[in-house]
């Protein structure tokens, strides 16, 4: 299997190395996010309950053993979680700001305490950063996952920056493991990953680039799998600066853009025109009539209503880290020119523009955020990006009603009610045309046709499972 990254911080679980251990079928967490059901389901914990305002108690599954033969105990779980809490650079999902303590109540019960009431603790325990290793994994100061996971595969050797080799865990608590073993290769170049699945050197290639799709589509031995990812390419607008401080102007920009053309040309059909801040398949998506259609006349009327007269050209910043943004910016520039809004394009590194974005010293910037990067719930994204005090409020948008809805959602335990509140908040963002949500990007995996029981995870957390199999393995 080809993955797009190698561990950068050895195997420290608070780092992105945890993703590699999780997708390899080594690392497991107390809970899991079931993408198909859209909810948190049991994993190493069988049940959990909020025992007091700030405390959540998790009951561990019986009969689970680490790959080194030791039992899964509350003490082992506490050791793993405490290591993540104490990390120099803490994990986004599980850090001292959101979790104030972990303790073993008895051999099978772990208590998680939060600084304030939080219904999202079970979501945090599904983050791969909260994966559990046996206590022997921490003996030398570093993190050693070899033989210390609970998952269906156990890592047996590593070629640094190249690959991780795994063997089947014969005593897996979840039942028989189909594959005898696996090799996870770390290949940063997308075209190389695509080539490897074509040649049969790899059975799975994660995150295949759009530019390789045409070669893969005609290959009978390869299946291309696409799923909505929680990433939306977005034209951020600085709501605190004229002319973007006028909602009619922002709506005019939205009406001027041809998102269908953008999706089919720049993204070559591998992205779907966005209908709002969320992908339509997400459980908190707003009821929408679909993607905004280009309407040049409406755009011109809205510009007139906003009292806009062309003056200084407005600037779009295209982040160089996303190569396609230069082309996206060019399409937008052409669309806006047609309604009489002159635009210039600046291509810059993200690190160089971040201070200006956070300070509100810019017009428009193309960016893409992962809504579920912290936990399988958009609360972190909706808070950081759109509340008045949000730490990543690039739009410099502030709306008291929106803030109240998000505050209410943050304290709502019932998932369906919380999702309804997210949809309500999303509707405000749409009505205010805070940003232009351009296209919902697709997660693209390529797999060999003979691979069986492969279930695509848009976030690439669960890839190799006990059920994954192929003939002759």
């Amino acid at each position: 299997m080809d993955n797009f990254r190698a561990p950068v911080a050895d195997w420290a679980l608070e780092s992105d190395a945890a993703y590699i251990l999780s997708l390899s079928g080594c690392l497991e967490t107390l809970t899991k996010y079931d993408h198909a059901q859209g909810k948190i389901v049991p994993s190493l914990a069988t049940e959990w309950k909020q025992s007091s305002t700030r405390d959540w108690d998790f009951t561990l599954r019986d009969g689970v053993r680490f790959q080194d033969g030791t039992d899964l105990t509350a003490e082992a779980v506490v050791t793993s979680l405490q290591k993540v809490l104490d990390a120099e650079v803490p994990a986004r999902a599980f850090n001292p700001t959101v979790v104030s303590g972990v303790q073993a109540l008895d051999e099978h019960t772990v208590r998680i305490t939060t600084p304030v009431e939080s219904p999202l603790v079970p979501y945090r325990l599904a983050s791969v950063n909260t994966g559990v290793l046996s206590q022997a994994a921490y003996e030398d100061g570093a993190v050693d996952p070899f033989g210390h996971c609970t998952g269906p595969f156990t890592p047996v050797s590593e070629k640094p920056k190249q690959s991780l080799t795994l063997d089947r865990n014969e005593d897996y608590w979840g039942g028989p493991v189909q594959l005898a073993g696996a090799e996870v290769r770390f290949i940063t170049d997308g075209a190389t990953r695509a080539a490897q699945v074509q040649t049969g050197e790899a059975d799975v290639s994660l995150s295949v680039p759009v530019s390789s799709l045409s070669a893969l589509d005609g290959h009978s031995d390869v299946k291309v799998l696409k799923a909505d990812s929680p990433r939306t390419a977005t034209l951020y607008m600085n709501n605190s600066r004229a002319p973007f401080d006028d909602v009619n102007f922002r709506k005019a920009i939205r009406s001027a853009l041809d998102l269908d053309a953008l999706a089919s040309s720049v993204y070559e059909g591998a992205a779907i025109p966005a209908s709002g801040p969320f992908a339509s398949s997400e459980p908190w998506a707003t009821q929408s009539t679909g993607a905004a259609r280009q309407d040049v006349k409406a755009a011109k009327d809205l510009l007139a209503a906003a009292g806009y007269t062309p003056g200084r050209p407005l600037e779009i910043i295209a982040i160089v880290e996303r190569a396609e943004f230069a082309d996206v910016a060019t399409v937008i520039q052409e669309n806006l020119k047609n309604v009489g809004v002159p635009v210039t394009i600046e291509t810059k590194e993200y690190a160089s523009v971040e201070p200006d974005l956070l300070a509100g010293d810019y017009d428009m910037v193309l960016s893409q955020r992962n809504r579920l990067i912290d936990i399988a719930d958009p609360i972190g994204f909706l808070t950081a990006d759109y509340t008045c005090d949000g730490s990543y409020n690039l739009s410099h948008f502030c709306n008291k009603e929106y803030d109240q809805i998000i505050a209410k959602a943050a304290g709502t335990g019932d998932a369906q009610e919380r999702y309804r509140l997210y949809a309500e908040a999303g509707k405000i963002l749409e009505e205010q045309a805070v940003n232009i949500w351009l296209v919902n990007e697709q997660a693209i995996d390529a797999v060999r046709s003979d691979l069986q029981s492969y279930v695509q995870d848009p976030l690439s957390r669960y890839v190799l499972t006990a059920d994954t199999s192929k003939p002759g393995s």
Partner: protein
Amino acid sequence: MKAFLARRTATLGVAVLLASFVVFLIPYVTPGDPVRKIIRSRVAGDVIDDATVQRLAVELGLQDPFWVQYVRWLARFCSGDMGLSHVSRTPVIDQVLPALSVTLSLVVLTLGTAAVAALVLGITAALQEGHVADRLITTTTQAFIAMPEYWLAPVLVLVFALKLSVLPSAGWTGPASAVLPVAALALRPTSYFTSAVREGVIDALRAEHIAAARSRGLTYAQAVWRHAVPNGMLPLTTMVSVWFAGLLGGSVIVEVIFAIPGMGRLLYDAVLNSDIPVAQGGVAVVVGLAVVLTTLADLAHRLLNPRLREHHA
């Protein structure tokens, strides 16, 4: 000779110092906060807690004036300690040595292949000067110069891995996996080397001492092998050492395309992530090795060229 070696040793020290200082300046002359880059390389994401940024800056000593940080690094480096990576917090030496061994293998294979090919092609072209073989070799090798690695590497993968299925498309797992990256890297030096060998042999063939050698009874083949071929090999020693130094840190594109964990990729990632201890340690080793190699090449050049040896004796 002693004076020559003393001069080169001093050059080595100055080159390593200068290179490490330039690398040290990178986070100060490139945009963005280095601490944020370090954090992003560990936990991808846009939202970064300011308290974490400040705490990490203190822990890594990045809040000190840059010259204090540099002197601190220099003192440690001089005592043989390259320090810890800012990103992985593991010893730099543990990252540099494996990467160096991979790149050294890649470069030795590349330049060995290029040198052998250049000798065969260059001597053939020289002996057939003006004929079809000469024109064919000269035109083909000149075309190699116009094939950059970033274009050539995917083409080689397309033909030999995807279409013919005879070689692996990526990795560094054995002799077969080395063929395509070595081919991608070797074509351009082969071109330059061939041209130099051809010129050297032609010059020698026209020289008076060849005629003198033949008048002493040497056959044409003996004259060629004893006088012309060594003359053609002479420029190779210098060219190989220069290319060696360049490829040590300059094979990054091929290393990324073929997923080879070498020095180019290590340095590229280190600069991208503001992992300055790794970048500095890596550059110091590469520059040091480059100076040592060019010194050895100069020595070899002197040994092979008696006139130069006598002139500087």
